């Protein structure tokens, strides 16, 4: 570790992984509820399990982005973090707020939670992904502002590298767009229009800048490729992300009230959205192929390449298949949406966080060339189990979605099957999905185990690289 203050990232990464495990547990609960509809009814209604699952996702990704930023900004800036103390305090504030919110969801009926947290003073509760009480939202703003301030001061004092500037731009965008979560009008259509300013402009906008910066940083460190080349690629990727994604937001405006011209603008621009993800694949593979060094942490490279591929599949391909308005008319709000959402979020954002963890954690634990080979192999096994399982979940949901559309959406009023009757028909496919959910969770367990194993001699550092080099001498 080049700068002592980078170590504040450790707690953020560890907590992110704890929340990830929690997210998976609630995913499994819902997977079973899809089939055994009254499973845990009265204790954990589906909507509670869902808000825990999705909110844990968002919060663990935020912890991951924060850890990534606290790790890479000092190194990029070539100066210590402005205030490690502030970063440590904010970790505990954010963690406490997060835990309290999740406990609130689980132990208090939602309408009661709204009452207890004085929602009526500034109502912001009751929307998808933004279920957290207003006071939690205010807490998030405080934590994120402190985080950006800390990083901003660090960058101001040090080198304003392209990676730093792209990252901080993405993070400022994240903060600014989050403010739209406080706007909750009586008019449902205005509500929905601006809700997407948080969700779309996050995941199909500024989060792509954050992901690009983290990927670029990791590739520079592990391949040794010239910074100039990597920075050029980063600019191209984020240029395409914004050029496609800003007006591409229109693909959410097809069926919620805005005018017909959004059907054209949204379709055309969002059809371009896969391109930056495709460029990330080309970029990552090219940098690895043209690498100038053999870094000991090979599994970090596996994660980097895997992230690019899975993000392209989930966000790019699965996004594209239902983004054109004539198709989306039938697929909107179906299991196709769930299929795309899972693979996109996992492939792009869950995986980029695990990529930086794979690279940075060993270093912070005193293993600059990565964990020992045995641990890396186990980590790679966890990687493959998770990736294949998520692809399995996605394929199952895609089949379910197509069948749902055939039964429920394509026929006319007289012949269409009802929602509930259709869901019954999909049960066999939901069983397949649940099985992949179980294997995915086992993948997480394998992945976690890799952090705790040493090699046959009980060593934990990657000695193999030194041995290889010695034997080649």
């Amino acid at each position, binding site marked *: 570790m080049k700068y002592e203050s980078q170590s504040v990232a450790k707690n953020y990464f560890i907590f992110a992984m704890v929340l990830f495990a929690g997210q998976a547990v609630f995913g499994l609960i819902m997977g079973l509820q899809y089939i055994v509809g009254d499973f845990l009814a009265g204790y954990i*209604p589906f909507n509670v399990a869902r808000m825990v699952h999705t909110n844990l996702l968002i919060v663990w990704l935020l912890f991951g982005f924060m850890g990534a930023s606290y790790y890479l900004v000092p190194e990029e800036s070539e100066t210590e973090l402005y205030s490690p103390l502030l970063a440590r305090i904010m970790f505990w504030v954010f963690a406490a707020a997060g835990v309290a919110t999740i406990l609130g969801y689980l132990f208090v009926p939602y309408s009661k939670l709204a009452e207890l947290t004085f929602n009526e003073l500034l109502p912001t509760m009751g929307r998808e992904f933004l279920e957290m009480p207003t006071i939690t939202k205010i807490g998030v703003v405080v934590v994120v502002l402190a985080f950006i301030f800390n990083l901003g001061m660090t960058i101001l004092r040090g080198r304003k590298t392209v990676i730093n500037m792209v990252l901080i731009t993405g993070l400022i965008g994240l903060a600014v767009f989050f403010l739209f979560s406080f706007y909750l009008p009586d008019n449902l259509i205005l509500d929905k229009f601006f809700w997407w300013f948080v969700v779309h402009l996050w995941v199909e906008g500024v989060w792509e800048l954050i992901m690009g910066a983290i990927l670029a940083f990791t590739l520079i460190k592990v391949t040794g490729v010239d910074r100039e080349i990597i920075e050029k690629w980063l600019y191209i990727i984020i240029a395409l992300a914004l050029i496609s994604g800003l007006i591409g937001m229109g693909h959410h405006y097809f069926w919620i009230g*805005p005018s017909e011209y959004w059907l054209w603008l949204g379709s055309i621009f969002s059809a371009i959205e896969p391109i930056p993800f495709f460029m990330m694949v080309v970029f990552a593979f090219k940098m690895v192929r043209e690498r100038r060094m053999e870094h000991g942490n090979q599994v970090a490279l596996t994660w980097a390449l895997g992230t690019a591929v899975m993000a392209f599949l989930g966000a790019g391909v699965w996004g594209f298949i239902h983004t054109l308005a004539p198709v989306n008319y039938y697929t909107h709000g179906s299991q196709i949406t769930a299929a795309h959402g899972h693979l996109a979020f996992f492939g792009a954002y869950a995986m980029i966080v695990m990529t930086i963890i794979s690279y940075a954690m060993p270093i912070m634990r005193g293993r600059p060339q990565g964990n020992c080979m045995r641990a890396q192999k186990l980590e790679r096994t966890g990687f493959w189990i998770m990736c294949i399982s998520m692809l399995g979940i996605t394929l199952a949901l895609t089949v379910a979605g197509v069948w749902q559309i055939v039964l429920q959406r394509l026929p006319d009023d007289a012949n269409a099957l009802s929602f509930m009757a259709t869901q019954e028909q999909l049960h066999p496919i939901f069983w397949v999905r649940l099985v992949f959910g179980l294997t995915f969770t086992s993948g997480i367990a394998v992945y976690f185990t890799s952090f705790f194993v040493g090699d046959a001699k009980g060593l934990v550092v990657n000695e193999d690289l030194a041995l290889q080099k010695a034997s080649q001498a």
Partner: protein
Amino acid sequence: MADNFTKGMARNIYYGGGVFFFLLLMGLTFDTMLVLPERDHRENITEAVAEGKKIWENNDCVGCHSLMGEGAYFAPELANVFDRYADSDSDGVGDDQATFEAFLQNWMAIQPLNVPGRRQMPQFNLSKEDVHNLSEFLIWTSRVNDNDWPPNKQG
């Protein structure tokens, strides 16, 4: 990568493209704000409709249901539930508000249905006024011009 396409050019495309399309988005947002009143019939957002939206939010209905296709996919789409249950002349559009509200009052009161294995809707302990407001909200929602979505009654 061709060497005559420099990092500086890439950076300029990012800045230029980013700013241009952001401004375009702002322009289209402004235009949408001007056009929406004709499409959302906001003059019909009565106090009951507004209160109904609060009931919808405070009970996290969107956690199981979708509304205009957005939300969860565990339970039926509700933007067109008025069309589904109160279309007395079978033209695809709901028309019988009284019947719809009566249906909803009964539906909300009898939850949970306790059918073994069936996806269960909780009892939300709503007052009759709450359910009236919720009904008004769902009726208003069904009348928004959303480019003819969903494709059929089932949502």
